[in-house]
């Protein structure tokens, strides 16, 4: 029901969209997303995009993991 990995939007037509993961395309709805556009990465749950992933937030997120591991390095 819930896909743990983000999908990439490849086509949008109103609230209907196509999103792709590893070459497989799925029909999704984007009603709950603010300003969806082609190329956005979204989290999809039961056919609905529930959040858009911003690259900037993903990088911050990686930084957070790195901070943990770097702190461990220095122990």
């Amino acid at each position, binding site marked *: 029901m819930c896909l743990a990995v983000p999908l990439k939007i490849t086509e949008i037509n109103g609230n209907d969209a196509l999103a792709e993961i590893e070459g497989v395309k799925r029909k999704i709805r984007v009603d709950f997303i603010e300003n969806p556009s082609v190329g956005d990465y979204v989290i999809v749950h039961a*056919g609905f995009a529930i959040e858009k992933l911003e690259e900037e937030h993903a990088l911050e997120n990686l930084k957070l*993991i790195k901070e943990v591991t770097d702190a461990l390095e220095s*122990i």
Partner: protein
Amino acid sequence: MLWNQFKNPQDIQRIVKAINEMDIPPIKIMEICGTHTMAIAKSGIRSLLPQNVKLISGPGCPVCVTPIERIDSIIELAKNRDVVIATYGDMLKVPGSKYGESLERLKAIGANVEMVYSAIDAVELAKHNKDKKVVFLGIGFETTTPGTSLAIQAAKKAGIKNFFVFSMHKLVEPILRGLIEMPDFDINGFICPGHVSVILGERGLEFLVKEYKIPSVICGFEAGDILTSIYKIMLQIKEGNAKLENEYMRAVSYEGNRKAFQSIFEYFEPCDDLWRGIGLVPMSGLKLKEEFSEYDAIEHFKIKLDNTDKETACKCGEVIKGKQQPTGCPLFGKTCTPENPVGPCMVSSEGACAAYYKYQVI
């Protein structure tokens, strides 16, 4: 790709080492969400943890928490020739209380049962089968209910009269409160459900810390995310400093997805609801609001909801409460396998028993 970096083996090694070196008394950490259960089993994280850190699966698999009484009601409904049951695939194999009955078996002998990927697909089905009554099985938490809301909206807009929802939707906060308040509750920390948190936002989980002081981390689904979250929970426990941390910041904001959240309460209202193996939990379910009762399958078909939780041989209830590991069930891997499941935890792709079986967690 950027998303792959959340499972960088070097980071993982370092975190695993730190987890194993931390001096900490025996603790139990519960992952609430079924997708975490699967991710943990798949990545073999349990085998990387020290003996004193136990991961327990919680009540976050929608199919697993659906009581057998509801499965029986659905199976009765599926026997009605005028009805088409539209459901997510995970519900197909769940056995009812009568031997050999499931939606899949009924379909094989001619019942109208259709698998759908989204609630909207069920509305389409209704559009194309005007002579039938299409009943969508609404299961799942705050992540799935917004989709059901939109389906009702779409049916209303298109004037579709043969679309109904059998709502078994549930809310996360009341069941967590219920679990925590059980006298034998012994979980020391929560891996909070990533996608439910996308909808609720950090603020929707603050009660875990503010009211119950339980270390809690909102967590993503890659191995790096899960190990980082476990480490953070352990650190909170060690330092005696319970707080809500957000490890899944690429997807979860403080406010959550308000548009999706609000759509739930436009169409549904909270009601007492029955959970498998747990019983009736106050205000933990969602029923259609009065003004949308024409779409309510329970009203339309006059389904009498049985709210007494029946005892079955399956121990899913205990598994969901974190009281028993799947491998502790006498039926596990013997009478109960994914091909021939006895309980929903073995059926659902998010169920703890299925996860243990598939990835051979012993």
